[in-house]
Structures are given as structure tokens and as C-alpha cells.
């Protein structure tokens, strides 16, 4: 494996972390969806590069699934939902971007500190990919915690799932059956969530999830 190969793998996986930060930062709906599509493209590129390096053709199918489902279908569908919900012009009030970003960087640092010693026996690729994947997963969680809009929480969830696929592709790949079923289950989760979105909107007249807390009597 030449240094250039590992550099490209590093570049693709690292750009996923960077795009996760962009997701965390972006407060406009359409821009958020575009960034999410790029996130999926980076995932597809990363997995495809792993497939090429590991000579594992079934990983190409994983990359294709990522590209089609998460890069095209889900962003386009979410775009339609956003338009139908009528929130495409609203700018989301993200809770204090600065501290969130710093917290995100701390999470990336944490995942690197945790992953690199734990996986010492593994090859450099696996270690690197696992460290990046854990960062992407944690950043997805952070996004789900900090956002109040249901659609952005869905995007946080999907980006988290991208991180899981990245982790799996580094570790010699999941069996194809698992891969495909995960891909479809995400799609189904997406459908269920989108139905819920409309139900929430019907009931509460908003997709701001604080309204739900209010109805449970938890908000002040």
C-alpha cells in the first residue's frame, strides 16, 4: 500500500468528519440537505476506495447503496417534505454555534484518544477509519441533541448511520446481506419518520420538537 493510497483514504474519511461539522453548523434547510448529500457522497467515495484497496468487490455495492439511497433518494425526498411542510425558508435557531463546535471538536479528540490505543493490534486503515467513524457517530448524536427541528434531527440520525457504515467498511466490510438490510432499514426508518413528521405537524402545527415537551408538561 503506497503512501498516496493511505493519504486518499485519510482524505475521504477526514472530509466526512469535516462535513459532519458543516451539518452541525448549517442552519438553512436546503443547504443542510445539500451538505447531507455531500456527506453521503464522501461516504460512498470512502467505501469505494476501501473496496479498491482491499480488493473486495462487494464493498462496491455498499458504496453504490450509499450513493443511491443516502446521496440521492433521501435528500430529494427530504427536500420535498421540507417544501410540503413549508419550512424551507425558515432559518433554524441553532443553540449557540460556538460552544457546540468546540464540544464537537472535543468529541473528535475523545474518539481519537479512545480508538487509537484500543485498536493497536489492527492495521493502520482500520484504526484510522474507526477513529473517524466514531467521531462521525458522536457528531451525529450531538446534532440530534442540539437541534430542535425534527427534520434536522432526522439528518443527524442519517449522518450517524453513515458513520456506522464507515466503521463497517474499514473492518473488512460487513456481509452483504447485513449491508443491504441495513440500507433498506434506514430507508424504512426514513419513511416512518417522514409519516411521523406530518403527524407531528398536524397535531402541534409545528415541527419544533419543544412543542412535544410542552404537551408532556416537561417544559417550563
Amino acid at each position, binding site marked *: 500500500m503506497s*503512501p498516496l493510497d493511505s493519504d486518499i483514504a485519510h482524505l475521504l474519511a477526514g472530509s466526512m468528519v469535516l462535513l459532519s461539522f458543516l451539518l452541525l453548523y448549517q442552519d438553512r434547510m436546503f443547504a443542510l440537505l445539500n451538505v447531507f448529500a455531500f456527506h453521503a457522497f464522501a461516504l460512498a467515495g470512502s467505501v469505494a476506495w476501501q473496496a479498491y484497496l482491499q480488493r473486495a468487490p462487494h464493498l462496491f455495492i455498499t458504496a453504490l447503496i450509499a450513493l443511491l439511497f443516502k446521496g440521492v433518494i433521501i435528500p430529494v425526498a427530504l427536500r420535498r417534505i421540507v417544501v410540503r411542510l413549508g419550512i424551507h425558508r425558515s432559518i433554524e435557531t441553532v443553540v449557540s454555534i460556538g460552544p457546540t463546535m468546540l464540544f464537537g471538536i472535543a468529541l473528535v479528540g475523545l474518539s481519537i484518544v479512545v480508538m487509537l490505543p484500543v485498536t493497536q493490534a489492527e492495521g493502520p486503515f482500520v484504526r484510522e477509519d474507526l477513529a473517524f467513524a466514531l467521531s462521525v457517530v458522536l457528531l451525529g448524536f450531538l446534532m440530534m441533541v442540539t437541534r430542535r427541528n425534527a427534520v434536522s434531527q432526522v439528518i443527524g440520525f442519517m449522518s450517524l448511520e453513515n458513520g456506522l457504515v464507515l466503521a463497517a467498511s474499514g473492518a473488512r466490510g460487513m456481509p452483504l446481506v447485513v449491508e443491504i438490510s441495513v440500507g433498506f432499514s434506514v430507508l424504512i426508518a426514513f419513511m416512518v419518520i417522514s409519516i411521523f413528521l406530518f403527524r407531528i405537524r398536524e397535531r402541534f402545527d409545528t415541527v419544533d420538537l419543544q412543542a412535544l415537551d410542552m404537551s408532556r408538561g416537561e417544559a417550563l
Partner: protein
Amino acid sequence: MSYSDWLIQLAQTALVLGTAPLLSGVTRKIRARLLRRQGASVLQPYRDLLKLIRKEAVVAGNASWLFRAAPYLIFATTWVAAALVPTFASGLPLGAVADIIVIVALLGTARFLLALAGLDVGTSFGGLGSSREMLFASLAEPAMLMAVFTLSLFAGSTQLSSISAYMLGPGAGVNISLALALVALIIVSIGENARIPVDNPATHLELTMIHEAMILEYSGRHLAVLEAAAAVKLLLYLSLIACVFTPWGTAVAGAGALAYAAGLLAWAVKLALLAFLLVLFETAIAKMRVFRVPEFLGIALMLGLLGTILLFVSKVSR
């Protein structure tokens, strides 16, 4: 260090001062052409400087000695900082004495003096400019340092010549940390040079100005010196980016006259290209609200930090 090395260093020091107004003239010309205006000649900044030097310097009645001294000190520190960046030849005597952190410190000193000078006369605009400048500097300076740390960790040295040489060697490849450091450096240079999304160098609109507000009280030779310092600073940042990220063609100290000529040509081409890209970016983007600028510079800080963290991962995989 041989005699001829010092000669080249001196030539370089003179070169940065001599070509800085030309660079700002070229950027203004490109900008005018992109806006489909004719634009002034590229030599116009020289004429402006000459005109200002000949004019009488009007100083406010309550100005202290600091007000008079600051322009020269700012000019001197900026010029020295610019002389430390390799332009057409690397491995120069002054570069061995002072590394990239010294350059950041010198620029910080110039900024400190400028903010003091803005406050000195006690006009409201000067104070406003100074307070804004300091607010942005508190983000831009750490961002610059983080980018510098990323580069020095990557290349294993804080000397600009060594970093430049490392980039040419086989050790450097397509690395995400380098890309992040580059973007961070570009954002910092846009902010530091008062270019468009942050500040507009061609306006005196009080709502937006930062750099112009601080030098509003200056005239005559003081203003000339400050304008020259601003031009040198732009040249410094562009040369810095060119020297670290596109090190091709730069002559090594002790090479023949032909190598120096080639280095000079390469440097001119790189700078013209960077100036064109800068202006293209400027014409494509709108001026930012002042209170969004900290976010913009915060991105640079974040990218620098992220670049440093990711570097540790890539060191493992090598």
C-alpha cells in the same frame, strides 16, 4: 552564510517593498475589469503614495507622540515580517534566524500599535475601529497559530524554508490536515487584510469599516506609510500561502543566477494567480455583517484545530 546570501536577502527585502503597491494595483485593476469598469492603471498606488508623501501631514491637536511614531513602527514591523517570508529564493539568512511564529508575533505587534494609534486621538471612529479590530484579532490570531502548528507538526519544523522544502519532498501528499490549514490560512488572510467579506478596503462607510476607521485621522506621509504597510501585508500573506502550498520553482539559496530568475518568474506567476483568485472571490461574495465576522473567523480557528487533531491520526497510519 555567505556574502551573496545576504545580498539575495537584501534584494528580497527591497523586492517585497517595491512590488507591494504593484500587487494592490493589480488587484484593483482585476476587480475593476471583473466589474466591467476600466479601472485605474496598475501603477496608481505608486502615484498615490508619492502624492501623499509630498502632502503636508495634518495631526490632531491632542495627538501624543504615539500617534506620530505608530505609522513608522507599524511599517517597520510589517516590512521585517514580509522580508522573512521566502519569495523567489528560500533558505535565506534572516529566515534561519526567525521562524513563522516570529512573523505572527511581528504582525501582532503591528496590530497592537495600530489599535493604539486608532484610540490615541479620541475620536469615536478610531475607537470603534480599534475595538472591532481587537475583537476579530482575538479569533484570527489563534486561528493563524493553529494553522501554523498544523504545518509545523506536519513538516517537523517552524522554519518556513524547511516547511517549503518538506512540501517539495516525498513526505508530503494529499493530506486533509494540509487542506484544512490552507483554508484556515486563506480565511485569516482575508480577515487580516480587510478584504471584502470582512471589510471593504475601498469604502469609508462607517457601519462596516474596520481598518479604514483606525487610520481615518492620518494624512500626508503618515498615511502613505500606513498604506504601504497595508500593501506589504497583503503581499506577505499571499507570499506565505504561495511559499508553503505551492513551493515549486522557488530557488534555493546559493543557486545560480538562472535559478533566481526562474524563482522570480514563478513567484510572480503564483502571486498573480492568487491575486486573481482573491479578487474573483471578492466580486462573487457580498460583504458580511460585522457581527457575523467572528463566526467566519471562528471557522478558521475550528479548521486549524481540526487539522491538528486529524494530523495525529494520519501520523499513526504512516
